[in-house]
């Protein structure tokens, strides 16, 4: 990735963060922390790596992106709206009666969402099944799956990881959003998942650990993953609430109230 592409993706990530802050702020409350921590990874995946076509969201050979930490749905929605999967106006309907954009991802409601999520731990098994089916069909799709660090406390994550490692699913790229915080506090205080690199290595994964807010590092890690010959884990060291000063300053920003004043001030969007 050259410097200009990196720069343009950095700008794009900032715009998407502002879209997310505005979207959740318009509703008034939401999972802002985990939405913002994955935004750089989503930007790299959707704007520079994934084989996708917003005009043909179900094309068979597309890459799949599963947001297993389903509460980061709004992060997916701002990306999908920006790419034209649905009108940007929809973002104003987040979580409102009759919306197509529920807080947790729903493949039956939202164009571009490849899998429903919300009950933690389940998306990774689904991603493994997609990767196995893709191999069976010689489908070139890469399956991206983003899991949370709190989510890694779910036993199903390890069932799925064992199978992915055992079957050397090199078309699977799992990303751990390692922001170190969960709903009730620090992951390390509640039920520590450390050492994550050693854990996934021992499950047979090719593991890379990077700064999850470094666009170039994310891009390089995805490129490296594609030739690894193994199931891939990219540990994204992230900051929960990254890019929203009020969220970063909060003791815990897993889910928080966002007033109109807060989102306008943060985004500088006073004219919308």
């Amino acid at each position, binding site marked *: 990735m050259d410097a200009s592409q990196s720069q343009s993706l950095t700008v794009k990530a900032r715009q998407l963060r502002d879209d997310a802050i505005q979207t959740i702020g318009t509703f008034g409350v939401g999972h802002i922390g985990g939405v913002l921590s994955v935004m750089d990874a989503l930007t790299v995946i959707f704007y520079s790596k994934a084989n996708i076509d917003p005009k043909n969201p179900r094309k068979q050979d597309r890459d799949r992106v599963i947001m297993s930490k389903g509460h980061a749905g709004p992060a997916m929605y701002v990306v999908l709206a920006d790419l034209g999967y649905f009108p940007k106006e929809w973002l104003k309907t987040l979580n409102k009666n009759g919306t197509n954009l529920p807080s947790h991802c729903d493949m*039956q409601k939202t164009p571009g969402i490849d899998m429903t999520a919300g009950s933690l731990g389940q998306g990774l098994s689904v991603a493994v099944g997609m990767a196995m089916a893709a191999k069976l069909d010689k489908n070139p799709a890469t399956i991206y799956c983003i899991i949370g660090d709190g989510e890694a406390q779910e036993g199903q994550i390890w069932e*799925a990881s064992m199978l992915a490692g055992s079957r050397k699913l090199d078309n699977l790229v799992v990303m751990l959003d390692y922001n170190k915080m969960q709903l009730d506090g620090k992951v390390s205080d509640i039920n520590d998942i450390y050492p994550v690199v050693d854990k996934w290595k021992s499950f047979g994964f090719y593991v890379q650990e990077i700064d999850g807010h470094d666009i170039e590092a994310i891009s390089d890690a995805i490129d490296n993953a594609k030739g690894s010959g193994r199931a891939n884990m990219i540990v994204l060291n992230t900051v929960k609430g990254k890019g929203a000063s009020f969220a970063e300053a909060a003791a815990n920003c897993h889910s928080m109230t966002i007033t109109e004043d807060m989102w306008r001030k943060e985004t500088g969007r006073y004219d919308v």
Partner: protein
Amino acid sequence: MTTDEREIRQTLAQALVSLAERDERIVVLDADLMSCHATKCFKERFPERFFNVGIAEQNMIGVAAGMATMGKIPFAYSFAPFATRRCYDQIFISVAYSGLNVKIIGSEPGVAAEANGGTHMPFEDMAIMRAIPKMVCFEPTDAAMMEKALPQIADYPTAVYVRMFRKKAAKIYDESLEFELGKAITLKDDGKDVTLIASGIMVERALQAADILAEQGIGARVVNMHTWKPIDVEAVKESAEKTGAIVTCENHNIYGGLGGAVAEVAARECPVPMETVGINDEFGQVGKNAYLSEVYHITTADIVNAAKKAISRK
């Protein structure tokens, strides 16, 4: 009544091979119980389409759901408690709520688990599966029914749960059987006093009970309610109208089971005296089918007694 010459599990596995020959979407998953499900023939014919994912049922259901998103029609097998209770949230969210077309085969229903005992003896599988929106819940009676059901199950656009007795069942049907999922089969229509609505291994017992009742001058209809959901509302109404009394017969807890399903319809559409032969809120235990059937009061004699009681309440 004769015993089937074919096991239901072998019949299903061979039928899956036949179906997979002409439909490349068919894949089979198991959680280390291939030997118990006779699916080796599928593995040998289609090694790349058979996935033993190890002892991890929750993951198996998720993997099946992922394959379904890619256009496959996965059949995921385990013993009935582990195919349902163990991975209920995965079935609920990753399969049903996501609108994915996964077929779940749960074997050894109720007392059929015999020596595996209470941990393996599901009296609640149909109740919990029935509570999942749009889930089809089917219990085949014998090998011929299983064989004729398979193409329908594969073609059904939503998830289907099959509660499968594995071994040689009482032979009720032969190859001439024609039936539809969701449409009950009336096996005996000449009784005027009571209708016995049965499923699975209880169909044979209901037929035997009808013979005993006939000897005592009591006319019993017998209906095979193989599909508990969507239940055949018309068949329940017809039973109530023709005989004015209903006895349900199930190898399952009466709470949420076939008795509950029929009662829901009867109470709404055609209230008549009803008795429910089934497991009355108990856990399982080790023992032979015949012994356990005595213990839990699901024998032919229990059906006869229940029929008389229902009739007495008219």
